[in-house]
């Protein structure tokens, strides 16, 4: 549950303290007197961090009076999701934080309740994966990695987060781009960032894949070599993207908010307006910068269409690996 990537945003928790201290300096019109925020993960994770960041910025701006938080963690959010659907149905003042991890976990866990059962409101942030090798690896750059993968996909073991997650799917897509089946890879799943990083640092595996922020310090210290990131544009000016390296793969770990099923259209409009106003605030831009989150704002039909394509891409890869 306490995976490093989810924890990276935990500092947002700290920022709720000043939010409590600052009197409601109402600068904008209050849109909700109270909003309940459902986090399908434990406190201290990435989803929790996003929820608390929304709380801080929107309360400081006076958009929302108070927030009630509820954390129900476990199994990539699939423990909390059915509870949100059952307890908040039809309510226009409830939001759930979720993201790409849940798209995958719903498929692999084969749970009856999925993201199609909740109402998409807005996508807010994203983080690209990075492919790294141990410092002493003979693989020097991304073309070397692709050549190794192409020649011997089974012999190039890659460490990452839990099976069926963003890292695993990213590897599946890269394998497909090299003319292999996603199944042929040697993906070694580790629980949490610590053991995975240890396996890469100790050169127990050929390479590793995970969120850029997770490996950033090891890359800076020269203990891991970054080969490529998986975003549409460079996340770090010094690391090329897969796309510019001739591999047509774009995949990020995105996070956003959802409303319960059965909300009335006018209530949904109100929630979308809240998120749009929040996104326009300078304080939000500041928050993204301090958290190292890339802005990935998207609402309405565009977000719904993105969700469909993300689910289709995820399902395709997971099916091919044999997980869905």
């Amino acid at each position, binding site marked *: 549950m306490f995976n490093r990537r989810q*924890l990276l945003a*935990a500092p947002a928790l700290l920022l709720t303290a000043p939010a409590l201290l600052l009197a409601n300096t109402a600068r904008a019109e209050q849109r909700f007197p109270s909003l309940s925020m459902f986090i399908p993960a434990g406190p*201290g994770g990435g989803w929790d961090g996003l929820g608390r960041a929304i709380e801080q910025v929107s309360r400081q701006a006076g958009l929302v009076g108070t927030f009630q938080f509820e954390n129900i963690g476990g199994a990539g959010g*699939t423990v909390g999701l059915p509870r949100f659907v059952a307890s908040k149905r039809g309510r226009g003042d409830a939001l759930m934080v979720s993201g790409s991890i849940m798209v995958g976990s719903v498929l692999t*866990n084969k749970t009856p309740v999925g993201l199609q059962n909740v109402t998409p409101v807005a996508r807010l942030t994203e983080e690209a994966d990075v492919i790294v090798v141990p410092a002493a690896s003979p693989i020097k750059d991304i073309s070397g990695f692709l050549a190794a993968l192409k020649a011997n996909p089974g012999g190039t073991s890659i460490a990452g987060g839990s*099976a*069926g997650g963003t890292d695993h799917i990213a590897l599946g897509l890269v394998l497909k781009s090299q003319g292999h089946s996603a199944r042929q890879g*040697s993906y070694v799943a580790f629980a949490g960032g610590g053991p995975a990083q240890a396996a890469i640092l100790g050169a127990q595996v050929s390479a590793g894949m995970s969120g850029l922020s997770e490996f950033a310090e090891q890359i800076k210290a020269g203990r891991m070599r970054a080969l490529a990131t998986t975003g549409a544009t460079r996340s770090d000016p010094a690391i090329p993207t897969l796309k510019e390296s001739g591999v047509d793969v774009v995949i990020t770990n995105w996070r956003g908010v959802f409303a319960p099923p059965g909300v009335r259209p006018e209530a949904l409009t109100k929630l979308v307006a809240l998120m749009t106003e929040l996104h326009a605030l300078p304080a939000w831009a500041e928050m993204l910068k301090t958290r190292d989150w890339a802005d990935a704002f998207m609402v309405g039909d565009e977000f719904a269409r993105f969700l469909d394509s993300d689910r289709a891409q995820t399902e395709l890869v997971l099916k091919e690996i044999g997980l869905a």
Partner: protein
Amino acid sequence: MNAFDGLSLGFSHALTLSNLGWALLGCFLGTAVGVLPGIGPALTIALLLPITFQVEATGAFILFCGIFYGAMYGGSTTSILLNTPGESGSIITALEGAKMARNGRAGPALATAAIGSFVAGTIGTLGISFLGPVVVEFALKLGPAEYFSLMVLCFVTVSAVLGGSALRGLTSLAFGLLLGLVGIDLQSGQPRMTFGIPELLDGVNVVLVAVALFAVGETLFLAWRHHDNQAVVRPVGSIMMSRDDWKRSWKPWLRGSFLGFPFGVMPAGGTEMPTMLSYYAERKLVAPEHVHEFGTTGAIEGVAGPEAANNAAAAGILVPMLTLGLPTSATAAIMLSAFQSYGINPGPMLFEQQSALVWTLIASLYVANIMLVVLNLPLVGLWARILKIPQPQLYAGILVFATIGTYGISNSVVDLVLLYSIGFVAMFMRRFDFPTAPVVIGMILGPMAEQAMRQALTISQGDWTAFVTRPGSAVLLGLAVLALVGPRVWGMVRRG
């Protein structure tokens, strides 16, 4: 900066009045959360993150480390007195500790746990100060193949708790392995044996199972079989350790410490495995005149060793965090995120870039250790008096305590149903002489061994010889065979 300069700098920062205050608060909170089965140090630190926003980094980390060390002390108290382990590192302590308490030796058991924790905590902290970077580089050389072999070695320890009948003991072990399989499989992402219950996707909590087997099972059994209406008050006995107790404790403390620290440093180590190995070692090394105390009246060696091992392991867990920025436990992960909120990015350069903070933190670990032993030793008499409560009321209290603690794990009714179902099974296990400890050992080791084995086989592309061709792995497997066969062969040779 060498270790001595670092430490003197650290102590000059740590010994200010406000920092001592933070350490004291942390130790106190940590002891309290260690006592409750559901709440661990990770959750407590997560909940405290917002409060410490106002506090400068040094004070906050001293508080967190106090909580972390304190939880290790607190966990043993309920293990010994109530047979209700507060966290997974104290499960093994309950085996002998609770038996000692039942036989009027609660005081010495608590005292040896507290002093053993102090000794181990100090050795562990010395390890962080002087050996940290060296040990961690060595630990990185261990891959999944070595971890699997290490767990095979740990499985040998089951033989120490099998009891009279190997068949019954192995049945218990199999039950534990079965429970360990519940939940999402890490390597494939697929749910196993969850029966469509979403709460089971995350697996069954091992502390829950230990509480159900030890505390709930025992309580239900007594309620079932206890016929006479006389209220029995257990003897409390002497509070302090006798000369003999000291003589029997010091070696296990040291052995436990030296066993625990390296396990803590290992990225996939943890506090559970060294407690098992320590228990096994003490049982094998105990003086012949005390052998009969194991599993009957409770042997002090079986408390001293594992308690030292879990505290030394807790110190070891901080090593990869401080030297490489690797979060190898939930608590370390939360602490790392706290570093980030102060704008410090913990990584391989932490020691150089934040040397003042890191050394203050290490110095405060020494301080916390002394505080904890001072805080806990006088409490031994007070705690032991809990046993003066007449049995029916005491067991009712244990049941309430276990229930509240378990609900605290994830506020889920499913957990309570599990607690009482497994407790019910444990009641029958007690009735028909099935040992309960192998269940816990199977549950802890099973999933870890399975994942390590599959990770190793993925890396070796399905080649099983990887376990014997890698030197580290081969040595560990050899040790396991030796530990299993050695005593029997030795016995046969001796008998002629």
